[in-house]
C-alpha cells in the first residue's frame, strides 16, 4: 500500500496525528477499534447520520483552539458529598482528586490498570463495537483506539456517595480523549456525575454494563466555555429489571455532539435519557439517541429540550427500534425547542422503527417561540419582560430536569439554570 496516498484522507491524517497507548490488556481492543475506524472512515459532511451537524471540526487532525472561560461560579455539585476524580485537559490530576477507595465499588484508572486479569478486559470497547451497527459511530471507535486515560468503575454494592468526574480546561489547544467503563453487578446502584469543559476538544466514551436489577444514575453538566467542542458517546446495555437514567445539561460550547446508544436486553428494564440545553450565538448542539428494545415489557423515555437564541442551532436525532418479539414495549420520545429569536434554528429527525405489534410507542416534536399569552399573563402581574422570559424558559426545561431522580441534584441543576438565565438577561 502506498503510505503517502493513504495519508491524504482525513481519517488517515487523524490517525497519523495520534499516539496509541502501548501494551497492557487493552491493546487487542485498541487494535481492533483502529481497524474499525479505518473500515468506516471518519464522519463526513454528506453522511446521512451527520445531516444536520458538520463533523469537520471534530474530525480534523488539529483541534480549533478554544479560549479559557472564567465563569466565576462555585464548582458544580459542591453541595453534594461525592468522590472527585479530576482531569485537566484530559490528564489525571492526582492532587486535586480524592482517594479512589470507596465501599461497594472498585475504581481504577485506565492508564494505571496494568494487571492482565483486569475485569475491564472483557468490557473495554465491547459496547462501543456493538453500537456500530446499524449506524457507524467512527469517533467512538477512534476513542477506543486512542483514549489516553479514563476511569474503570466496578460497582458491587451501593456506594454511599456519587462518583464525580471533574474536567478542567486550561490549555487553549488541548485535545483530550477519555474512555470510561462502568460495570454494575446484580442489584448494585451508583450515581455518576460529570462536569466541566475538559479541553478545547473533547472526545469521550462511557460504556455502562448494567446487570439484572442494577440501577445506574448519570448527571452530566457540559462545560460552559463558549468555544469548546465535544463529541461524546454513551453506550449502555441493560439486564432484566434494571434501570438506567441519564441527564445532561449543556450551556454554551461551539459544538457538541452527544450520542447515546441504549440496548434493552433484559425483560422489564427501564431507560430514561434527558437533555436540557441553552444556547446563545455560535452554538451548535446535537443530541443523537438510538434506543433498541430487544426484550419484553421494557420502557424507554427520551426527553430533550432546547432553548436557542442569536443564531444558535439545536439538533435532535432520536430513534426507537423495537425488534421482533420485543412485545409490551412502552417507548416515549419528546423533543422540543424554544426559539427566542428569528435567527436560531431547530432541526429534528425523531424516528420509530417497529417490528413488534403489541407496543405503544409515541414521539412528539415541537418548535416555536415563547408563548405570548403566558408572557402577557406574567407581565400583567407586574413581572418584568426579562424575568417572565426566564420563568417560562425554566418551566419549558423542567420536564427534562425532572428526569433527575435525586432531589438534591435536581435542585442544584435548577438553581444553576436559573442563575445562568438571570445573568444572561441582565
Amino acid at each position, binding site marked *: 500500500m502506498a503510505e503517502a496516498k493513504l495519508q491524504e484522507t482525513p481519517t488517515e491524517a487523524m490517525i497519523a496525528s495520534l499516539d496509541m497507548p502501548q501494551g497492557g490488556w487493552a491493546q487487542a481492543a485498541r487494535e481492533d477499534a483502529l481497524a474499525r475506524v479505518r473500515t468506516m472512515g471518519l464522519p463526513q459532511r454528506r453522511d446521512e447520520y451527520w445531516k444536520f451537524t458538520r463533523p469537520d471540526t471534530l474530525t480534523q487532525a488539529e483541534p480549533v483552539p478554544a479560549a479559557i472561560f472564567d465563569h466565576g461560579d462555585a464548582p458544580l455539585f459542591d453541595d453534594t458529598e461525592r468522590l472527585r476524580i479530576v482531569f485537566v485537559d484530559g490528564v489525571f490530576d492526582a492532587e486535586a482528586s480524592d482517594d479512589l477507595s470507596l465501599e461497594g465499588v472498585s475504581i481504577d484508572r485506565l492508564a494505571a490498570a496494568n494487571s492482565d486479569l483486569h475485569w475491564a478486559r472483557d468490557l473495554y470497547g465491547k459496547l462501543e463495537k456493538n453500537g456500530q451497527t446499524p449506524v457507524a459511530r467512527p469517533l467512538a471507535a477512534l476513542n477506543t483506539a486512542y483514549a489516553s486515560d479514563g476511569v474503570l468503575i466496578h460497582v458491587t454494592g451501593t456506594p454511599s456517595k456519587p462518583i464525580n468526574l471533574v474536567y478542567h480546561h486550561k490549555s487553549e489547544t488541548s485535545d483530550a480523549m477519555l474512555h470510561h467503563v462502568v460495570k454494575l453487578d446484580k442489584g448494585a446502584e451508583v450515581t455518576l456525575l460529570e462536569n466541566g469543559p475538559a479541553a478545547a476538544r473533547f472526545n469521550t466514551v462511557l460504556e455502562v454494563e448494567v446487570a439484572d436489577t442494577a440501577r445506574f444514575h448519570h448527571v452530566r453538566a457540559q462545560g460552559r466555555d463558549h468555544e469548546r467542542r465535544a463529541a461524546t458517546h454513551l453506550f449502555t446495555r441493560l439486564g432484566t429489571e434494571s434501570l438506567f437514567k441519564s441527564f445532561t445539561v449543556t450551556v454554551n460550547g461551539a459544538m457538541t455532539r452527544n450520542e447515546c446508544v441504549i440496548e434493552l436486553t433484559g425483560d422489564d428494564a427501564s431507560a430514561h435519557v434527558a437533555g436540557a440545553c441553552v444556547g446563545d450565538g455560535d452554538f451548535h448542539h446535537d443530541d443523537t439517541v438510538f434506543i433498541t428494545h430487544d426484550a419484553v415489557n421494557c420502557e424507554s423515555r427520551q426527553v430533550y429540550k432546547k432553548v436557542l437564541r442569536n443564531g444558535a442551532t439545536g439538533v435532535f436525532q432520536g430513534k426507537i427500534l423495537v425488534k421482533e418479539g420485543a412485545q409490551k414495549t412502552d417507548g416515549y420520545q419528546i423533543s422540543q425547542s424554544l*426559539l427566542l429569536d*428569528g435567527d436560531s434554528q431547530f432541526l*429534528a429527525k425523531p*424516528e*420509530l422503527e*417497529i417490528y413488534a405489534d403489541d407496543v405503544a410507542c*409515541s414521539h412528539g*416534536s415541537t418548535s416555536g*417561540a415563547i408563548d405570548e399569552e403566558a408572557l402577557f399573563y406574567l407581565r400583567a402581574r407586574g413581572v418584568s419582560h426579562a424575568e417572565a422570559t426566564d420563568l417560562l424558559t425554566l418551566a419549558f426545561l423542567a420536564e427534562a430536569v425532572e428526569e433527575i431522580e435525586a432531589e438534591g441534584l435536581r435542585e442544584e441543576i435548577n438553581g444553576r439554570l436559573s442563575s445562568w438565565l438571570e445573568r444572561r438577561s441582565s
Partner: protein
Amino acid sequence: MDNMTLKENDGVKEGVDQETVDAVREVGGKYKYGWSTDIEMEYAPKGLTPDIVRLISEKNEEPEWMTEWRLAAYDRWLTKKEPDWAMVDYPEIDFQDQYYYARPKSMAEKPKSLDDVDPKLLDTYKKLGIPLKEQMILAGVEGAEDAPAEGRKVAVDAVFDSVSVGTTFQEELKKAGVIFCSISEAIREHPELVRKYLGSVVPVSDNFYATLNSAVFSDGSFVYVPPGVRCPMELSTYFRINAENTGQFERTLIIADKGSYVSYLEGCTAPQRDESQLHAAVVEIIIEEDAEVKYSTVQNWYPGDENGKGGIYNFVTKRADCRGDRAKVMWTQVETGSAVTWKYPSCILRGDDSQGEFYSIAIANNMQQADTGTKMVHLGKRTKSRIVSKGISAGKAQNTYRGLVSMHPKAKESRNYTQCDSLLIGSECGAHTVPYIEVKNNSSRVEHEATTSKVDDDQMFYCRSRGMDEEEAVALVVNGFCKDVLQALPMEFAMEAQALVAISLEGSVG
C-alpha cells in the same frame, strides 16, 4: 362501484360498519381487479435507447422541442443513480427489460369518435367501476350528455397502458373554459401552456424516476383551469396497466390559474401477473393566486401474491407548487396496492398565506412494502400545512412514513401540524416513522406527533361480542382508525376507499 351501490350507500350514511362488512363479504379474498383484458397491443421494442425516446415522441406526433426535451432528460437519466435510501427492498430492476411503449392496436388510428373505441376497453372501465354515464359517453352513446346524471358529475380521462383513450364531458368543460385532455393532445394543441409549465415543478433532473419519466412518458392528463373558474365537475383519471412487462410512465400536469378551483381524482389498478411491473409517474400541479386544487388518489395496483411474487413497483413523484398568495392544495391518498411504493406528494408553499394539506392512508399487507409521506416546504409568510398519515401494517409487510417539514427563515408566522399514526396487525410486520423537521425562524410553530399501537383489545372484544367475526371486527376498527383521512376524500372515493381498506386487510388475522 356502480350506481346501484352508490344509491344504497346513500341510504345508510351512518352505517359505515355495515358497508365495510358488505364489502368484505362481496369480494371474498381475491384481488378484485386482477383480470387482464385481451386486447391486441402494439409495442415498441424492449429496452431504452434514444431511438425509443424518439419513437414515443413520434407516435404522439410531438413537435421538435418536445423530442429534444425528452432526449435531454434521457441523457440526464444515464448519469443518475437509483435511490436506495427508502426502507424498501426489491430485486434489481433491469431497465432494459421493459417495454416503454404499448398501446391497444385499435388506437393505432386515433378514433374519430368514441364509437371507434374497442368495446373490450370499455368493458375494462366498466369492471373498474367507472360510473355508467361516463361509460355511455366513452362508448359514444347518442344523447349521453343529456342523460340524467346520477350523483355528482365526474369527467374521466382514462389512461390504458400508455395511451389516453378518451376524455368525457369535453364539451361541457369547454364551455367553462377548462381544458381537460391527454397530455399528448395538450402538447399538440396547447404548446404554449405545456412549454411554460412542464418540468417547472418537478425539474427534469429531480430524481432518478422523474428523469426517466421525463424521457419516456407516453401519456397522461392535462388540466388547465382559467382564472376565476370553478371547474363544474370533478375530473378523474383512471390508470390501468394491462400489458405484460410494460412500464407505465404517465405524466400529469395541472394548472389552476388565479382564483380557480378544481378537484381531481386518480384511480389506479393493474392485472395480476407473476412478473413485477414498473410504474413511474410524475404529477405536477401549479396553483396561482387564490386558486385551490384537491388531488385525491386511490391506488390499488396489484400488490403481488402472499409470497411477494409479482406486483407493481410504484415509484412516483408528485409535487404541487403554490406559486401565488393564498393558493391552496390538498393531497389525499389511499394507498392499498403495489408491491413496493415510493411516493412523497409534496407541497411547495411559495405564496404568502398559501396552504398545503396531506391526508394519507397506507395499507401494507402480506409482503408489501410502502415508503410514503410528504414534504411541506414553507417559503412564504403565514403559510400553513397539515399532515395526517395513517399507516397500517399486516402480514409480513413493512410500512414507512417518511416526511419533511421545512420552515425557511423568511416563512414567518407559519404553522405546521403533523400527525402520523401506525397500526400493527400481527407480529411479523413493521411500522416505521422517519420525519425530518427543520425550523429556521421562531415565529413559526411546528408540531409533530406520532404513535404506534396495535388494534385495541377492548375494541375488538366489543365488536366480537356483537357477533362480528375477527376479520370484520378488524376492518371496522381500522376504518375507524382511518376516519380522519377518509373524511377528506370526495364522496365517490370515500366509499371505494372504505371498501378497499377492508379488502386489503383480508387474511391478516387468524
